[in-house]
């Protein structure tokens, strides 16, 4: 029966984004990949579209590292608009208030885009709507990235209410799951996922309940997002001359958990005739790029500042066993070696 939970503050009220190390690593890795897009056009000519919240970490990083000056931040929390405006770090950021499903369609699609839909709610239909909006409009050489919460659902999770990204406008017409306490209809993650997508056919037929435990939800969400991108692009290609047909090249398939398990996936949309340009980007040489189902798990090694500085002396390369700091597991050293270039230094960031 319909149940409207009281409005919840945006996640920025609950989580200090500066303390999400895996997310910071992910952001820096993506930034390194974006630099390769220079083969298409100078990064300053790209437009970045993100969900900046009050922290604007992604905006700061991409403006400073890529030189991107055309920037749009979408924010749905209209009650606190003034606060978002107050926190805008640069004059070149155009803050647009509203739901992504409403605002995204109105952004200018004339230039190449990097769109990062960094939701913190789970995958639902409005996410697929946003992805479809991008795939039907974006010009070749644009990048779309989606981050969703992919923690396996637990009974009672739906009482949390919608995340900061708002649901579709037709939300009101959709029945809520049956009231709690009904013993006959057992809790099912698969049923919940289907209900959120409101289209059972988006969930691949072989996905079973047991596939949604642990990182399984992230794997399934990755498949659903990739399928959606491919399908929309395939439809868009209908009737286009072969050189103008669009292709999708996945770049990212990150799994990480600063708290809840998260999935980030996305990639480059380009036209067939731009294939050589894509090759010039040499994305495959980046170790954190994944173009298939195999995720790149970002793990944050628990190391002290001194231990990290010590390990840095042998990186890149192999840290000799005798040089591993005392009582530190070699596995932790390996984790660190994989991400040290992108490891955030909190003390510097907030100064």
């Amino acid at each position, binding site marked *: *029966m319909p149940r409207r939970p009281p409005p919840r503050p945006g996640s920025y009220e609950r989580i200090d984004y500066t303390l999400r190390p895996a997310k910071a690593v992910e952001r820096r890795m993506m930034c390194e990949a974006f630099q390769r897009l220079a083969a298409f056009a100078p990064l300053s000519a790209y437009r970045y579209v993100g969900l900046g919240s009050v922290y604007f970490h992604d905006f700061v990083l991409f403006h400073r590292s890529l030189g991107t000056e055309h920037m749009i931040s979408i924010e749905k929390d209209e009650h606190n608009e003034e606060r978002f405006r107050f926190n805008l770090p640069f004059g070149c950021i155009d803050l647009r208030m509203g739901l992504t499903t409403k605002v995204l369609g109105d952004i200018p699609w004339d230039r190449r885009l990097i769109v990062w839909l960094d939701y913190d709610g789970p995958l639902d239909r409005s996410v697929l709507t946003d992805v479809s909006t991008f795939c039907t409009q974006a010009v070749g050489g644009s990048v779309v990235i989606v981050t969703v919460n992919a923690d396996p659902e637990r009974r009672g999770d739906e009482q949390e209410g919608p995340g900061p990204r708002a649901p579709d406008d037709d939300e009101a017409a959709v*029945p809520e799951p049956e*009231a709690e306490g009904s*013993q006959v209809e057992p809790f099912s993650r698969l049923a919940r996922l289907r209900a959120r997508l*409101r289209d059972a056919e988006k969930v691949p037929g072989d996905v079973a309940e047991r596939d949604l435990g642990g990182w399984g939800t992230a794997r399934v969400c990755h*498949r659903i997002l990739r399928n959606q991108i*491919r399908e929309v692009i*395939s439809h868009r290609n209908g009737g286009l001359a072969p050189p103008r047909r669009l292709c999708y090249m996945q770049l990212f398939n990150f799994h990480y958990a600063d708290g809840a398990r998260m999935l980030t996936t996305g990639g480059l949309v380009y036209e067939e005739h731009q294939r050589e340009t894509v090759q010039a980007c040499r994305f495959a040489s980046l170790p954190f790029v994944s173009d298939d189902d195999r995720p790149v798990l970002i793990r944050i090694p628990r190391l002290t500042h001194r231990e990290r500085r010590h390990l840095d002396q042998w990186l890149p390369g192999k840290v000799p066993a005798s040089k591993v700091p005392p009582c530190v597991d070699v596995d932790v050293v390996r984790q660190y070696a994989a991400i040290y270039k992108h490891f955030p230094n909190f003390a510097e960031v907030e100064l």
Partner: protein
Amino acid sequence: MTPRAAPHSTPPSTVSAAPTRGFFVDMLTKDIGLAPAILDLVDNSVDGASRLRGSADFDGLYVHLATSPTSFAIVDNCGGIPEELAVDYAFRFGRPTSAPEPGRVIGQFGVGMKRALFKLGRHFRVESKSAKWAFVVDVDVEKWRRLEEHDPKADWAFPLKVVARKGRGAFPEADRGTSISVDRLHEGVAEELALENFTTRLGRSIEVAHLLSIERGLRISLNGRRLKVGPFRLLRSDRLRPAHEDFRLHEGKLRVRIWAGLGPSEPEDCGWYVFCNGRLVLGPDRELTTGWGNAIPKIPLYHPQFARFRGYVHFDSARGALLPWNTTKTGVDQGSPQWRHTRQRMVGMMKDVTDFLNRLKREQDRAGQEGRTLLGDYIRGLSPKDLPKTIGTFVAPKSVLPPKTAEDTVRIQYDKPVGQVQRVQKGLRALGRKAGSYKAAGERTFEYFLEMECEE
């Protein structure tokens, strides 16, 4: 009209109405989507299973489909295509009206298989073995259509090669079956088959269209995954009974059975399902076609509060022409008298059900968003059962008394300042006892006190 080459001596004053092969290959295939075309091929296999088993179950029979961006295949062990069917029907264009009634089957229009094969690609091969013979039809579609350019009078036949015959006795049942493969797929087909979303949708269409055959034991698989159906049932108890009618039209030649009642609260599954000879042709439908939003009697437009509504209509006849389906089997022929008659009865039956669901909604509204009602709890406590055979109208409880086994309950109401209640809610949250509403806050604090402070 049976398409054939024009007669030799056409007088100049008449125009040949015989279609060209090109017309058939290019135009007819545009009338059907890829998924319905593939469903037509599955229909042929299911018809084979019916020929083989009659009304018995389909245990041991299978239909395997395999799709890839470069090829399509469907293989079954459903008895193969017998000679008379192959010669008079399966490879002809349009079923001749002189052909005998094929009995209660799904493939009625005599275009399905050819249309599907042309739709898919430029080369196909059909191999089949039935009781008395085995044959191969291998067609390069481009070559086949060019034959006409060289000789406009050429017959429309496909080259059929008989591979084996049994004079006496028959090939063992285990060896019989049909295997169809198509390659050199059309570009659009290859693109669709490359999409996982398409195969997911195709699998679901087959599951829905052939749920009755799957229930009878037919194993249908798509790319190695066995297709299954949620059982096709309605909630039933001594106090809740679905409406059911069973009648015949057209001098008894068309049997119609209708059920209307309640199922699990699944908005996606809600609506009417219309079957012709066991094949789903429409549904779940929540549109005016099946009575939603009907004026007289007044039926509401579909709304989520009706998510429990389920209606099933079965048309069965040995005469395909009496069935109210369209040629692509993707909807009903709304103009047919059989459909209009049946729809009227459906509307009458669904009215009782929607009235009941409205009552359920009103009780729920009175109890508040999180409240529980006896009637709601009663319905939630029921499990789906097979469709009843007893004819009758929809029966539902007016009110439900608490079950005798449960403890007597009393209702507690009190007023407290909002600020205090919100503090309590916050405190409950900290204890991991979520209380989203004030009512829940009252209940959770009661439960907390009971658990922590009261002895057993």
